[in-house]
């Protein structure tokens, strides 16, 4: 399969992600199974993204941008994402235990979840001087609290609206 199957029929793109999962990982992210992906590498990234993000819907366009940025930083990233998904599939590792397991085993994959989580939750890819912001108001940490808070620089509301008890 070519790397980018941009013209793949929608049905194929929507079935691809499901085909990468086992019953265990599918059970973690049933809401994500129909997410369209271009290829298996991106599918593995999206599957791990969904596992790390919890019950958050993931924007396909944002997923593509984050994936491309992570890949641009590290050509080996797609392969590592596939290996990480395979590991989770095989060993049925729970999301909350994943980092602990990888760190404990000094796995070469230990940095992968943090990179993906940083990309989704903060909208940031890369580190140090190479870090860049790809999402702000659509970063998941802003979405998760959006019923109560606005991202800084966005107006909360009319003058004094913040005096009310948040509901």
């Amino acid at each position, binding site marked *: 399969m070519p790397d980018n199957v941009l013209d793949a029929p929608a049905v194929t793109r929507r079935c691809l992600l499901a085909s990468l999962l086992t019953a265990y990982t599918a059970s*973690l992210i049933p809401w994500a199974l129909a997410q369209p992906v271009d290829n298996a590498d991106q599918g593995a990234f999206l599957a791990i993204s969904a*596992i*790390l*993000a*919890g*019950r*958050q819907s993931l924007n396909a366009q944002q997923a593509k941008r984050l994936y491309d940025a992570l890949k641009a930083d590290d050509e080996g990233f797609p392969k590592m994402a596939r290996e990480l998904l395979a590991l989770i599939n095989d060993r049925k590792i*729970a*999301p*909350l235990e*994943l*980092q*602990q397991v990888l*760190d404990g085993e000094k796995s070469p994959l230990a940095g992968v*979840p*943090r990179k993906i*989580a*940083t990309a989704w*939750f*903060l909208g*940031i890819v*890369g580190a*140090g*001087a190479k*870090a*860049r*912001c790809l999402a*702000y*108001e659509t970063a998941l*940490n*802003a979405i*998760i*609290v959006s019923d*109560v*808070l*606005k*991202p*800084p*620089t*966005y*107006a*909360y*509301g*009319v*003058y*004094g*609206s*913040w*005096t*009310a*008890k*948040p509901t």
Partner: protein
Amino acid sequence: MMPDVTAADFVVIGSGIIGSTVARRLAEAGASVLILEAGPRVTRGEVVARFRNSPRRSDWMSPYPPAPWAPHPIYQPESNNYLLQAGPYPYEAEYIRQVGGTTWHWAAHAWRNVPNDFKIKSLYGVGVDWPFGYDDLEPFYQEAEELMGVSGAPNTGSPRKKPFPMEPVAEPYAMRRIRERLVPAYEVVTNTTARNSRTYDGRPACCGNNSCQPICPIDAQYHGGLAAQAAEQAGARLIADANVYKLEHDERGRISAALYYDPDKNSHRVTGKTFVVAANGIESPRLLLLSASDKFPRGLANSSDMVGRNLMDHPSTSLTFDADEDLWLGRGPQSPSSIGIMRDGAFRAEHAPYRLDFTNISRVDGTTRALIAEGVYGDEFAQRLRHSAARELNVKNVLEVLPDPNHRITLSEQKDAMGIPKPQTHYSIGDYTRKGHERSQRDFRRIAELMGGSNLRFSKEGDFANNQHICGTLSMGDDPKSSVCDQWARAHDHENLYFAGTGVLPTCGTCNSTENGVAVALRTVHHILGEQGVRPVSAPPGQG
């Protein structure tokens, strides 16, 4: 190449909130005024966009990258080593060299001192007394507050003859709950801020963007960019990207010219009748030291060897904890409330006074980083993020530092990109300040207890965060042997050289230094114009 020449009645070096305010008042009185600013012009929109696109949103300097020809200190993602640290304790000052200066990025705290701050030597036997008292400055506080548009409540310990220009800014729900739960043990007061609680001077009321630092996107708070704009509207001429590297003097010791580099390092020469150095508490003494000559080998205004000495700021330690109810910091302005009961008292003979300050900064980004570091993923992430965003509180102290000649700014042997020696700092945290920190831990614990606090996280013992209120390096005083300038901020050594900025403040008290700096500078302007026989266009309230 031969330098070109520009001339003005007044040459103001630095376009920050204080320099620009001085320039504005002088121009309004009919003088020709030239402002030389080392950094570039930057718009509010550019800063907002830089913040939103920043990969380091918690690094509030990230939207303010230094210009290569006018560097300022940067510490993230790595230090640019502009401000050299000679120890023993790091003084990682942050400031901004651009038109408008450092108050582009501030919480807009616009406090007056409390009256006893002016006489701590007489009353408590520590520090020094100011060469004038609260009552002398009171009309100029009022003038500063009317210029900046200050809102506040009368219960903060600083008496006033006229009301605040504006009512206090509406209290965020979280601060209301803190106030309600801490009474009667502590009175929580609304901070005095240059933030609009209604439309003021053509600028809108706050709408709770919660990004006061690093940038208010709607100019609901005053800042130096607005002050520079007002100065230009009053007729002052502002040259940006003009990095002044030397002041020249004549045989009588009068300042005759300022030399500056443009970004291509072409040198330009500006002459004037009177010079006002307003380049902040680090760059101003640096310029005086850079201007050493055969006649003044230790630098200008430095016969006392006091230039750059008595550096002060406000160190802080803090407590973070989880309250037992949902409060959701991040709604409304960032820094709305504090406790002032420890700002003054007989204890000042023994330990530093302090203000206790509650943050209202959203906890979302900080918690996110902590959860990722911890490896919290999946459904748990959202639950934990919402819990901390709703419950986490932080209170910090704002501690007084006493003037100490050993705390100082000097010239480094290293040079910046323009070939000018970099500033270097010598700093430490004295026992007086440490004892204040120790005393405040009692308050931290009591506050947490009253808020049903759990998961108490004290800042690391021995670590003091800096508040970027650079004071004291050009201290004013009556004795030319122990101070740099007189009570009018005129250099003891140079008849036509004045200073404007927080560097002239002899002590730093427990409140953010900007309003003190602006008020003292307005007093200076009043004096200059009076001495020159010019009636100020806008006389201070009660005196005009």
